[in-house]
Structures are given as C-alpha cells and as structure tokens.
C-alpha cells in the first residue's frame, strides 16, 4: 500500500491552516456479507477537486451515498467541515449517476422543486437558477421538459439544481457518463471556476483522461484506498516510462511483444492503438535499443519511437494487473473465418442525406469501411452519429444517397445481409427481468447461432463479462458496466463480419474497456469491419481511422495521428501559481476554446511558433501579477483537436448540438 498520507490539518495554497472540507476516517459499509467499503480514510481540502477512481464495484457509490448523508455507514466517520455528513446535508450538493431529475418537469420546475426542498427563498431560487442557466448557456431551455434534454444538458441541469442552494461541498458520482466531449470540457471549466470560489468537489469517473484534471486522486479498489496523490505523483510512482511505437504491422508486433510482457518483466504492458503500440517499460533507454533490434530481427520497420510519461490510464491498468485482476478471458470460440474478406469494402456510403421534416440530421456523408478495419465515428450529441449508424446498417432508409453493405446494395434488410451484421445500440436492450443466461439464450436464438455452438459461445460471454457462476442473476440487478459487457458479448456471439458498436464502453471501467478493445482488435484481425462511436477520445485513438461529425456533416477524416497533425498551431502547457485567474485572463484575450485547465496545468493552443507564444504569454501573465512556474510545448491530444474542430465550425453558423 503506497499512501501519501495527508496531515490532519492541511495547509491550503495561501498558507493558512484550516479544517479539511471532507474528512473520512476508517469508513466501512457492509451489505449483508458483502463489504463494499473497508475502512477508508481521506481528507479533501477546501477548494480542491478530488477524484475517486477505481473499477466497477470498488465502493465509490457507497462512499458518495454516505457522504451525501443518504445512507448510514457501518462504522467509521464521514465529516463535512467537522460535522457528521448527515447533519450537513444543507451544505452538500449531490449529483447521482442518473442525475435524479424529474423527466416530466421542466427545467425551471426541477430547479424550483429542489430549491424549495432546501427552503431557499423563492427569489433566490429564481435569481441563482437563472444565473447558472445563463452560465451554462441553457436559459433558453427553461421551459423544456427535463426528459427531452440531451445527456450533456441533463448533467448541467442537475448541476444547477445542486448549485442553487449554494453548497460548500459538491459530490459528483460519474457525472460525465454519456456526455459528449464538448459539453464535458465546458463542464470541467465550470468546475474549475467553482473551486476557485471556494467550493470543494469530490468526483468519481471511470475515464482517466478526465481524472487528470483533478487536483488530487484517490485510487480505490475493492473497498480500499490504495493510493492518494496528484495525477503526476501517481503516474511517476509507477517508476515506468511509456514508449509510443509506430510500425507497419501492429498486429505482428503486438503478438510478438506480448510474449515478453508481464508485471515483473521489463515490459510491464503493451497496448495497441489505432496506429501505434504503447509500451510501458521500466527502463526506457535500455528498452529502446532492445526493441529496435528485436523488431528489425523480425523484419518489422520502426517508423517512430517516442518516450513519454505514462498516462493515468497506464498507471491504473498496471496497478490493477499487479493486484492480480486480469482482463484476460477464455479464447473466443471463433467458428467462422472472415479473413478472406480482408480489404473488401464492407460498408460503403456515398452522399447520404437524412431529413426529418425540415430538419437535416445528416448531410452528404460519404464513408467507406473495409473488412479488417476499426473505424471510429466521433461527434457531439446531436451531430448525427446515431442516425448515420442506423442508415449504415440498413435500419433507416436515407432520404438520398447510396448505401452498400457487405457487397450488396439492394435489399439491406434481407436475411442474408442481416446475418452478417452485429449491432450494439447505445442502450442495448437486454431484458432486465430475465436472468443473464436467459438473455443470452434468447439472443443466441434470435441471431441464429447454431445449436451446437451455443453452449460454448455463452460460456465465453460469461467469462468475458467476468460473470461465471452468476448466470442466474437477474440482469436488472447488474451495475451498468457489467450489463454493457454482457450486451457486447451478446452482439458478437454470431460472429458478424460487419459490426456496429454505438458507445459500447459507456460506463465501463478501464480494465474492462481494455478487454473490449482487445476483442474489437481481434475481431478486426479476423477480417470483420467495425464501426465504433465513443465520447472518449483517448479511447478513440484505438481506431485505425476516425471520422468526426459536426452538425450532420463529416468534417474531418483520417488516422488518429493524421488528424492530429492536420491541426494547426501549437499546444503550450503552462504551470502558473493561480491557474484559474490565468485561464480567465487568457480567455479574455483569445477564443475561449484555446484555453483549458487540467488541474494545476493550463493548456493554450497558440497559432504563433512555440517560443514566441511562450514569451508573449508569460509577459502577459507576469504583467497581471501572475507567476509562471514553467512552460513547455506539449502534444495535442485527440480531444484538443476535436474541440478545436467543433469550435472552429461553430462560427460558420452550424449548430453544434441539435435540441
């Protein structure tokens, strides 16, 4: 156990000692035999964004419910500003995973109801409600029913409801699941602002690129806290480096290097991305040489090799692996061979247009997906992704344009074509009131999995989902992440050679997500054509090719590195003494999207050359009494590029979210 143990009385960054905002000591929660939380201890300072990360079932939600005062602890204490959490409910705002909004009430009614429950004077509810709605650019929608809002807007409304009573502590339990990257970035900007005003935030998220924006993080596993520290501390504590390797044949390189990989070997982990391999190694210099020789010896080119710090996701997965949690499952019992199809055009769409009444949901989308390829379709909510997928798999007829599926362009809904297609929709329809086994039997039957293969296939799905022995559990009782795994398994049981996955990993923890992608890559290696959508751009890097949609149009297409290299400008990372003030200042100078905060770090996308940009910005900040601790050129993340593309399209009059 590696704990950077915090002092009982902590110093904030102004050097004043004060009481911790959240103080949890030896907290335990037991449900019958199951011990969900086992004696955790943590302190969160006033004005801090503190992240709680961990796999499904780590005890995060239980911790949140105890801190929100809606559940009793079995033992230990959970205090907020020195008093028991339950007594401090008037000072706490709690966002549940499902947002706890009333879908049949309007935005304004939801705000009023939650304000009234806390006895906020009516005029304050109206004033502050409006103020926050304006902040989120949602005041136009005050009379819309909450049930008709997009995921991102629901999340913002829930936040408004929680903020109107002016809480001192905000508890956010996976607030960004199902929320698109643009909304998510806005959300984080707001959070950063709020902490600057003194609000304390405790947040859980399964997405670790997002967790990097927290000031400090606690890594939770099986009800215990294993590690607490800043994202940088956590990443360096692993004592490893990350090597990005680009080579012509990723599949071959991966399978070769995997044999040399293990928690106690020199290469800790190998992860395959769309156009590169990420290796987690103990000694970067030694491994560089060794790798070059090894690959050359196998006749593989080394196109590029880069050393970088491990990401939080690397760290997380490596830690879990070291704890013996394996993402490996029994081998997929493949009965069909699609490898002869490799390279053929599986999905071919030309100039697809879909109009709903006067609204054009999709305009002139042309794309091709070949067998053996993983194609990622990205876009904000309402950009037309789901409509496009429905047209691509033949569920919806386009208004105009041509579609070809698996070599046929006639009847796309014929049984022969449908047999070759797999589709996992956003809210995959497993039957909640059937057991897992009954669901799998049903889908195996519907998809026409041959009788003699069924047993084996179902066994594989259970092993893939980590649910062996639990097959008679009622599906509805599973946490979302697990259901998603069963749904994914069910969608590929019949070994389709064209697979559509609409947000397959939403709410799935990193290790399971890794298993998803290993499987997706394996299916693609076997000759299947796969289309995936996701809101998480770190994950999108695992696709071979990406398409980005804005307002119904495909605005960018290419490999992950290709898209990143097309982005103009440079990314500069500053570390300053007052990051929020610095961000506000820079935002007032330039377009808002060019500036974003990641915990203590400030990212700026500048059009000038890096040296000039650093010089000018530093001068600007120093003139305003801000001290720059360090500045360097960083590399664009896919998310930076995506946001930039969306934001640059916005001024051209294209609505980003359709409501």
């Amino acid at each position, binding site marked *: 156990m590696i704990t950077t143990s915090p002092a009982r009385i902590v110093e904030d960054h102004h050097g004043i000692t004060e009481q911790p905002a959240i103080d949890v000591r030896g907290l335990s*929660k037991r*449900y019958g035999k199951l011990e969900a939380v086992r004696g955790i201890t943590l302190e969160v300072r006033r004005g801090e964004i503190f992240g709680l990360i961990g796999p499904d079932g780590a005890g995060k939600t239980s911790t949140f*419910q105890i801190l*929100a*005062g*809606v*559940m*009793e602890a079995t033992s230990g204490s959970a205090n907020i500003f020195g008093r028991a959490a339950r007594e401090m*409910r*008037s000072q*706490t*705002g*709690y966002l*549940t995973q*499902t947002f*706890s*909004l*009333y*879908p*049949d*009430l309007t935005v304004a*009614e939801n705000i*009023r*109801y*939650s304000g*009234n*429950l*806390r*006895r906020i004077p009516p005029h304050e509810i109206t004033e502050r409600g409006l103020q926050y709605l304006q902040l989120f650019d949602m005041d136009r929608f005050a009379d819309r*029913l909450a049930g008709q809002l997009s995921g991102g807007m629901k999340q913002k409304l829930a936040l408004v*409801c929680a903020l109107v009573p002016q809480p001192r502590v905000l508890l956010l339990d996976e607030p960004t699941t199902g929320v698109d990257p643009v909304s998510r970035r806005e959300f984080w900007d707001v959070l950063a602002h709020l902490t600057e005003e003194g609000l304390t935030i405790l947040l859980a998220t399964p997405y670790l690129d997002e967790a990097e924006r927290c000031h400090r993080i606690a890594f939770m596993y099986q009800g215990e806290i294993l590690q607490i520290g800043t994202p940088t501390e956590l990443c360096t504590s692993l004592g490893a480096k990350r090597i990005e390797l680009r080579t012509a044949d990723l599949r071959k390189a991966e399978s070769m290097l995997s044999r040399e990989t293990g928690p106690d070997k020199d290469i800790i982990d190998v992860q395959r991305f769309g156009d590169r391999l990420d290796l987690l190694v103990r000694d970067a210099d030694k491994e560089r040489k060794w790798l070059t020789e090894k690959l050359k010896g196998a006749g593989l080119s080394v196109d590029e090799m880069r050393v970088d710090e491990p990401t939080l996701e690397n760290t997380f997965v490596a830690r879990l692996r070291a704890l013996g949690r394996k993402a490996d499952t029994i081998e997929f019992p493949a009965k069909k061979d699609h490898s002869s199809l490799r390279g053929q055009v599986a999905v071919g769409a030309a100039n697809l247009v879909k109009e709903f009444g006067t609204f054009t949901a999709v305009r002139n989308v042309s794309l091709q997906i070949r067998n053996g390829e993983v194609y990622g379709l990205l876009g904000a909510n309402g950009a037309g992704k789901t409509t496009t997928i429905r047209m691509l798999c033949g569920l919806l007829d386009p208004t105009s344009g041509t579609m070809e599926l698996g070599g046929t362009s006639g009847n796309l809904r014929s049984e022969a074509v449908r047999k070759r297609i797999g589709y996992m929709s956003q809210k995959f329809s497993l039957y909640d009131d059937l057991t897992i086994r009954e669901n799998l039997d049903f889908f195996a039957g519907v998809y026409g999995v041959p009788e003699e293969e069924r047993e084996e296939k179902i066994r594989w799905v259970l092993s893939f989902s980590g649910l062996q022995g639990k097959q008679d559990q009622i599906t509805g009782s599973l946490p979302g992440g697990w259901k998603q795994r069963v749904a994914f398994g069910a969608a590929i049981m019949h070994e389709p050679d064209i697979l559509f996955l609409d947000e397959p990993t939403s709410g799935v923890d990193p290790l399971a997500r890794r298993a998803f992608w290993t499987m997706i890559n394996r299916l693609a290696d076997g000759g299947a054509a796969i289309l995936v959508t996701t809101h998480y751009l770190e994950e999108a890097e695992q696709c071979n090719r990406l398409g980005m949609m804005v307002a119904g149009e495909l605005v960018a297409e290419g490999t992950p590195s290709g898209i990143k290299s097309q982005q103009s400008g440079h990314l500069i990372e500053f570390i300053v003494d007052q990051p929020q003030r610095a961000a506000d200042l820079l935002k007032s100078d330039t377009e808002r999207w060019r500036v974003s905060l990641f915990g203590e770090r400030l990212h700026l996308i500048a059009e000038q050359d890096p040296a000039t940009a650093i010089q000018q910005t530093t001068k600007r900040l120093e003139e305003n009494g801000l001290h720059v601790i360090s500045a360097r050129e960083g590399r664009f993340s896919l998310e930076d590029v995506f946001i930039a593309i969306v934001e640059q399209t916005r001024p051209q009059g294209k609505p980003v979210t359709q409501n």
Partner: protein
Amino acid sequence: MRRIVAQARKELTQIVRDWRTLALALALPVALLLLLSVGLSLTVNELPLVVQDFDGSTASNGLIDAFRASITLHVVSWPVDKTAEEALASNAARAVLIIPSHFGRDMARGVNAPVQLMVDASDANTAKLVSGDASQITSAYNQRMAGGMQTGPVQAAIRLWFNPGLSSKKFYGPGIFVLALSMFPPLLAALAMAKEGEQKTILQVYVSSIPAHEFLLGKIIAFMAVALAECLVMSLLLFTYFGLSFAGDPTPVVIATILYAFCVAAFGTMIGAIIPNQAAALQAVAVGGFLLVFLLSGLIFPVENIPEGLRWISYIVWGRYYIEIVRDALLQGGGWPAVWFQVLIIGVIGAGFYGLAWHGMRKMQVKA
C-alpha cells in the same frame, strides 16, 4: 410548510403534465360510473319463457295470459315438435311452462290442476326470481278463478322505501362512485411514489433535509386533491344523470369524503413506499383498492352474505364504511346518528396507512 406545498405542487404538475395520467384520474372514473351502474343491473326483466300448452282450453289460455302480463317474464314461441329440455339447453328460454291436457277440465271440476315449470337454475339468483314470480302469478290466477271472494287472512301491504322505483342505478351509482375513488387516486399515488424509487429521484429528496412527514404529507395532499376532483366530477353525474340528491344532513358525507380522500391517498403512498417498483405496486393497489372494495364492501353483495370465515376482512375494508356513509347520505338520510362510527373508522384506517408509510420512510435514507 413551504416544503409540503412545494412537494404537493410538484406532484400536481407531474400529474397535469401527462395527459394519460389526467385521463386516468378524471375520465376513467366517469366512464366506470356510467358503464358499471348502467351495465350492472340485478333487476331481471324480459326473461324468455317457453310455454307448451297441451290443453288449448280457455283456462289454459287464461293462465298463459297471466304469464304474458308479467314484466319479469317474456313468453316466446317454441315449435311444438321440440322438447322443453331443448329450449333450456339451447338458451332459448330460462324457463318452460308445461300445461298438460285435461288442465281446463280439472279446473272446471275444481280438482287439483298441476302445471309444470322447468327453470334453468345454472344462475341461482335468476332461477329464484323466476320461480318466485311464477308462483305469484299462479296464486293470483287461482284467486281470480275463485272469483276474488276468497282472500287469505294475512295480507302484506308492501311499500318500498328510499328507492321506491327499485332503480338499481340509484343503488349502484353511489357504490361505483366509492369504487372509483378507492381505485384511481391510490393507483396514481402508488405509481408516483414507486417511480421515485425506480428512477432514483428519491436520492435528491434524501439529500435535502426534508423530514419524512413533510414529504409524505405533500404527496398525500396532491393525491387528495386528485381524489376530491374526481369526487366532484362524479357527484355532478350522480346528481344529474342518476337523479340522486341529499336525503338528509350532508355534513357527515362531506367530512367523510375528505377523510376518505386522505385514506386512499395514504394507502397508495404507503404501497409505493414499501414496494419501489411500479409494476408490483400497481398490482398491490389493484388487490387492495379494487378487489377488496369491489367484493367485500357490500358494493354488490350485502356484507351479511359474505361467509363468516371471510367476513372479518370486510371489517378492515375502508371502502365498506364509506359506501355506508354515501348510501346513507343519498338514500336513507340518517345523518350523524347513523354514521358517526363509520366516519371515525375511516379516519382511523387512514391514520394507520399514514403511519405505515411514515414507518417505511422515517429514516429518509437508502435502505441497505
């Protein structure tokens, strides 16, 4: 107080927002009232009767005429070559009257002149009515034949009270009114409460410091309002289409109605609080609100007819007491002296439901 109002207001907004719910709340009770009280009629008339006359005399024709004059029975023709049993088996007739030959001769001689009446007794109630009616007709016929001279020593002079026209509409109308009130408001209340659990919105309520009493009262008040609105709509119908009016002091029924609205709203809320699942809560309300009140409250069958083993259940069926109060107000007019106890009991049962709901919610915490 403010939180109670906020809670009630939120519930009412949700009800009004969804037109289906609103229809369920207001239109269905009216439909139920019209359908059941018009369709549900236990007075029988125009029951088909087949007559096989093997005599064909003046006397036999006289007897048949007496049957023809009955409201309850309706003489239909039947081919002579078919047997009487066939008429019953094919449902062409509910009863068959067989007049043997020599009937006229025996009458004239003044000896016993038997006729046979075969009654389809698969429906026991109707069979009783038919045989009773038939014996009345024959004894009246006897008297007439005897010249109207001989009268029995005892003569009952019957006068029908409270519902002189024996209109079943007036009897069932109030009953169905009570049934509708016992069913729809608690159904809505239970669904609304279970939904909070299902959609996890209850967490938001728990996070605020609203006490269980205020939360429950707010909900109950909203569904009381629904119940009272239903009551108003249905009363209009009772006073117009059903031709009913207050028979005496209306205060007991007014107070009982408010208490009853509380009782049913608390019942639904309690079910929803205990069973946080809409489908299951719906069934629980269907059993409690509909089955019990329909079968064990004296709505159709008099409570006295319920077998003793089950009769005790009827003592806790809240609808039973309210039916007595409503019928008293609209038919008998006994006022407070007649129904004070029933009003009290409704209040007690309502408080019981509220107590149970509160017990389930008192911690305002996630059950674990």
